[in-house]
């Protein structure tokens, strides 16, 4: 009967700061918490009283990794609230941006934050010595994804040309042609990275879980940009405007992030694995091939598979981006005026961002100013599930001969597998003179 106290202050290689606290006495878990210790950020409060056009540009500042995703959900919510139908060109450009964000975020997470665990190094810094080709390839791939966002919306994070009703800038034809060439070249890099992933041994861990993601009711697209809310625990789907029926928030004392449950489950998972489990049949054939190579099956209940699903998704994003660029080039692009509101009221908008389904919900008054807002980010939705997974994994690991340090590493790896985005921080230089 083991007695173990684990207190990981700031789980490393995640976005933001959280602690893992586990107390086990004589084989029984007496306390298990994923503590979120960062301050609440009150974006919902200071959106109130701001003009609707400001919302995408304010909310994109919630995150430097998912800024395209926040902008997408924000413009969609506003367009829903105000009866705006964006043009086909706008939809194509937004889908391309969202693909690029999935790529840069997934590659950053998998190759800079998660892979060091599997290659037995502490971070990407020593990885540059042991596996420089992995780091150089990842940098090259990430740069491509950034350049797509930059060409379409003016900069690689915090897009400035993406607005409610359309774009105020469009990419040049030669930029799209060059990006398509680089995407085609990226296939080789991605293939090498998939081979690397195939060599890793994933922890053997399974727990029955509800997965929630957007799903295309017409079964035509692997849903990133649009769809209905779907779950692996029911055949019913939900309109986005009704998301609060399923997404039920509550407060836990040890966390400044809320926890979320559904009417069916005390916790659920969103993100790449949820999308894969619900929509894998709609992936590009090349992505399906990589999934087979990586041993990823629809219906996985191993949260460590989330990283595998992230790589599979990026294969899909590369291939679909090439097709979207082809369509844009065939159609021809022109700078279009922003579509103006036809009414004012309440509307919700979603997008599948790298870490899962993101909800923005606004009410806009007749004067065009926001009177109410609600934002639910994917990591918030995953918090309760991470804790439930940790609890199950601790029980499983207590049955083994692993040391406290080895158990701690496995728990950290589990949290990292979710790619949690806890907060953003200020960057400044700390210098110590000697």
């Amino acid at each position, binding site marked *: 009967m083991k007695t173990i106290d684990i207190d990981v202050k700031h789980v*490393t*290689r995640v976005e933001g700061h959280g602690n893992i606290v586990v107390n086990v006495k004589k084989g029984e878990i007496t306390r298990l918490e994923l503590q979120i210790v960062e301050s609440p950020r009150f974006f919902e409060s200071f959106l109130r009283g701001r003009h609707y056009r400001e919302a995408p540009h304010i909310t994109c500042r919630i995150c430097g990794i998912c800024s395209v995703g926040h902008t997408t959900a924000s413009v969609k919510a506003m367009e829903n609230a105000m009866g705006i139908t964006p043009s086909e060109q706008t939809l194509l450009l937004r889908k391309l941006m969202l693909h690029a964000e999935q790529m840069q975020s997934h590659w950053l997470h998998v190759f800079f934050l998660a892979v060091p665990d599997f290659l037995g190094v502490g971070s990407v810094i020593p990885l540059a010595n042991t596996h420089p080709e992995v780091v150089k390839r990842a*940098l090259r791939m990430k*740069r491509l994804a950034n350049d797509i966002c930059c060409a379409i919306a003016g900069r690689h994070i915090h897009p400035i040309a993406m607005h409610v009703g359309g774009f105020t800038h469009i990419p040049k034809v030669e930029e799209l042609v060059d990006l398509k060439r680089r995407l085609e070249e990226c296939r080789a890099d991605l293939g090498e990275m998939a081979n690397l992933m195939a060599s890793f041994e994933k922890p053997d861990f399974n727990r029955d879980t509800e997965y929630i993601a957007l799903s295309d009711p017409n079964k035509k697209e692997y849903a990133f940009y649009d769809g209905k809310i779907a779950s692996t625990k029911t055949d019913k789907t939900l309109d986005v405007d009704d998301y609060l029926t399923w997404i039920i928030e509550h407060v836990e004392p040890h966390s400044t992030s809320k926890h979320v449950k559904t009417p069916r489950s005390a916790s659920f998972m969103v993100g790449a694995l949820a999308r894969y489990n619900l929509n894998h049949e709609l992936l590009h054939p090349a992505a399906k091939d990589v999934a087979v190579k990586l041993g990823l099956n629809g219906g996985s209940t191993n949260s460590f598979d989330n990283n595998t699903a992230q790589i599979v998704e990026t294969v899909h994003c590369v291939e679909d981006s090439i097709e979207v660029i082809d369509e844009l080039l065939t159609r021809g692009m022109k700078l279009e005026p922003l579509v103006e509101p036809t009414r004012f009221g309440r509307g919700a908008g979603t997008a599948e961002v790298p870490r899962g389904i993101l909800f923005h919900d606004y009410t806009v008054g007749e004067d065009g100013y926001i009177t109410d807002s609600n934002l639910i980010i994917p990591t918030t939705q995953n918090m309760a599930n991470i804790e439930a997974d940790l609890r199950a994994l601790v029980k499983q690991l207590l049955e083994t001969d692993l040391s406290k340090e080895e158990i701690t590493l496995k728990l950290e790896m589990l949290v990292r597998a979710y790619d949690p985005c806890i907060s953003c921080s200020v*960057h*400044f*230089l700390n*210098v110590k003179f000697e």
Partner: protein
Amino acid sequence: MRNNRITIVGCGRTDSGDDAVGIRVGEALVRCALPDTRILLTEWPGVDLIADMEGVELFVLIDAARAVPGHPPGSWEKIDYRNFSGTLLTSHHESSHGWSIAETLELADRLGELPPRVWIYAIFGARFEFGAQPSEATIAVVPEVTAAIQHDVTQFLGIENGKLKMENVG
């Protein structure tokens, strides 16, 4: 696209007090129209900067630093990174959000991507809270740091009396 011989990066956040000073100096340098020089402004001096180092002879970073004894708010220091005996403190690789300039430079160095010369202009400030205005002392030093960088870069390029020595321009 070929990089210029020199890349200058102004780092910081304009909504976080003195952290804005690197951006302010970078903006001022844009107006100087330095030859063969690319100027970037960034809130996140992360791994993406490594691509901007390719083929560059001189890489210049401008960033705010926390004031320490001997370096009060409004003072500044030019650091020759390759010959620096002090320490650029890192975030201990805790978070990609907390990824610092120090880690970017260290990673570039290990990958063999660090340019031959790397200068860091550290401007010391005291106020970094979200929503704060930059302090008067820190903002007051922007013209001085801008002039110093302009001087150092033109010397590097071989410009004398405002006239470019063409043999030194690649």
